């Protein structure tokens, strides 16, 4: 029999003595690793989803009537605007600036429908220009039908989710409550993963007429020339009377600042989870060292140097953290959708894309962090074990 043995095998087999304790410790580390990788994935995924949402808006600057910038930023991402009005003539003033490549006016109108849901629901209609809006939102594709036949037609294009909710198809008639005006569905949009999915679009002129807002708009979306200086344009636009200018960068910063509070909270939870896991590891290994106090003394009497014993105990910690880390990362990959839903509930605004972006690189980083924590946690128990003197452990036997 030429079987060999090394410190790492001994360390691994030591962990098999108390299987339940070892399993619980691994589970604790696994849960911490799950929380950690999910949060790192969130940190990355949220920003990417937000960027995607902003890119899908089709315009980089939104001009609205003066109001709360936070409200404007949030409504901008949700596809609407604050219900404050600007004169339509402002469009000509905006178009004068050389930085403006394209411009599209919007009029948001909302009306309460008491017959929707259990206690009624607000129906929102977005009046858009049939020429400039589709050009700016070129990523919108149709599941059925197409855009309006006439700039003043009583027609609507319904977003994918809105059509699902209302159970509508092209050719259906819909009624605007209170106004008792019927309009025809001429197009159903394919799913875009943006706020447009939940919107009912109508021609701008039609919405202005139905809601008595002729000559008024709630917002103007601006697509800026590629080489234009965004700050310069913003400053120029602020020269216009009573307008609020919200740029893509501002929206991003505003949302990120809103989310940063939630991030701090979630990272605090992660930190606590990691600390608890660390204490769990220290406790498990230290208990194991104390239980094997005499045995470690015998090992040292066999010729093991303090560093050998330190390495053996440290290896036990690394094995625990490695297994826990791999399990936690596996859980994170498997349950990323559920984690997405849970985190979405905590946020003031969640972009439409996936909030958790986990890949193998992040998995390796997390594993590295968990192993680092394990190595740190293992120092004290390993040091205690390395200091065991054979005589002290043996003395209890003799006279």
């Amino acid at each position, binding site marked *: 029999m030429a079987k060999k043995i090394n410190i790492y095998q001994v360390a691994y087999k030591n962990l098999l003595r108390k299987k339940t304790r070892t399993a619980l410790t691994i589970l604790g580390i696994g849960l911490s690793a799950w929380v950690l990788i999910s949060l790192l994935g969130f940190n990355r995924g949220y920003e990417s989803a937000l960027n995607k949402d902003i890119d899908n808006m089709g315009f980089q600057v939104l001009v609205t009537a003066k109001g709360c910038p936070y409200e404007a930023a949030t409504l901008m991402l949700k596809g609407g605007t604050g219900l404050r009005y600007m004169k339509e003539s402002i469009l000509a003033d905006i178009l004068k600036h050389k930085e403006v490549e394209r411009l599209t006016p919007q009029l948001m109108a909302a009306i309460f429908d008491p017959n929707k849901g259990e206690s009624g629901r607000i129906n929102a209609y977005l009046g858009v220009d049939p020429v400039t809006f589709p050009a700016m939102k070129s990523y919108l594709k149709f599941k059925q039908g197409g855009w309006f036949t006439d700039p003043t037609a009583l027609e609507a294009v319904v977003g994918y989710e809105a059509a699902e909710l209302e159970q509508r198809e092209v050719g259906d008639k819909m009624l605007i409550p209170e106004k008792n005006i019927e309009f025809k569905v001429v197009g159903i949009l394919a799913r875009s993963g943006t706020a447009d999915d939940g919107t009912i679009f109508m021609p701008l002129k039609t919405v202005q007429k139905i809601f008595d807002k002729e000559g008024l708009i709630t917002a103007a979306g601006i697509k800026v020339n590629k080489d234009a200086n965004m700050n310069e344009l913003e400053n120029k636009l602020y020269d216009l009377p009573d307008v609020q200018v919200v740029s893509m960068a501002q929206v991003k910063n505003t949302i990120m600042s809103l989310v940063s509070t939630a991030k701090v909270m979630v990272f605090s939870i992660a930190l606590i989870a990691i600390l608890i896991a660390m204490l769990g590891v220290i406790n498990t290994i230290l208990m194991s060292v104390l239980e094997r106090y005499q*045995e470690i003394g015998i090992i040292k009497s*066999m*010729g*093991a*140097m*303090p560093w050998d014993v330190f390495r053996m105990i440290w290896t036990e910690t690394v094995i625990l953290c490695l297994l826990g880390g791999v399990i936690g990362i596996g859980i994170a990959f498997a349950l990323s959708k559920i984690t997405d839903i849970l985190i979405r509930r905590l946020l003031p605004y969640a972009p439409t894309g996936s909030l958790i972006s986990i890949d193998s690189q992040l998995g390796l980083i997390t594993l590295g962090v968990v192993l680092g924590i394990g190595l740190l946690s293992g120092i004290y128990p390993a040091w205690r074990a390395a200091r065991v003197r*054979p*005589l002290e452990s*043996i003395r209890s036997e*003799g006279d």
Partner: protein
Amino acid sequence: MAPDTSALEALHLTKIYKRGAEEILAVDDVSLTVRKGEFVSFVGPSGSGKTTLINILGCLDNATSGSLKIGGETVFAENKYLSESDLTKIRRQVFGYIFQKFYLVPTLTVYENVILPFAFFKKAEANADPMEILRFLGIDKRTSHRPSELSGGEMQRVAIARALVNKPEILLADEPTGNLDTKRCEEIGQVLRSLNEKEGLTVLLVTHNPALAKVAGRTITLRDGKIAQPA
């Protein structure tokens, strides 16, 4: 000059423990020589200092004063103490230890327990197949068993095999039969005797058991930390 045939040579060894303010003289001016290949047993009542003495002789502890030579080389002399690492280096080269408790690793097999010292240190000359030791001790059929599947006598044989695997010059046995019944006690005594007679191993045995002490070629009785009756 004649070759040095002493395995151990202790001169005026004294060990004083402090327990609070109180000083306890555990070993009191002990001088003795153990020749290579000798089998010496240490007997005496509890508290007589036999375990303390064997711990010093086995480099598990420093003496408070006195000197010790192992194989003719001075290990420590008056007021020169060895660090734990220095003691370990001597232990791994010279000694094999067996104790009253067996301290076998429960998750390792018999064979793995025997070769456990190799995980930490392997002497260049320790090339013998551990199976030979297991055969010699009569436990070669139990190599793949776990310690929990063995009797007390078998477990102590495994502990002896583990102590022998690195080919020690001196085997130190401190109450090796304390947990065994009379029959197993006799068996272990015979094992120690044959290791001494057939393998030429120097054996130092501490025991309360007069019958076991008799298997040694020389018995030293300790009382109050002094050698009361060298045989």
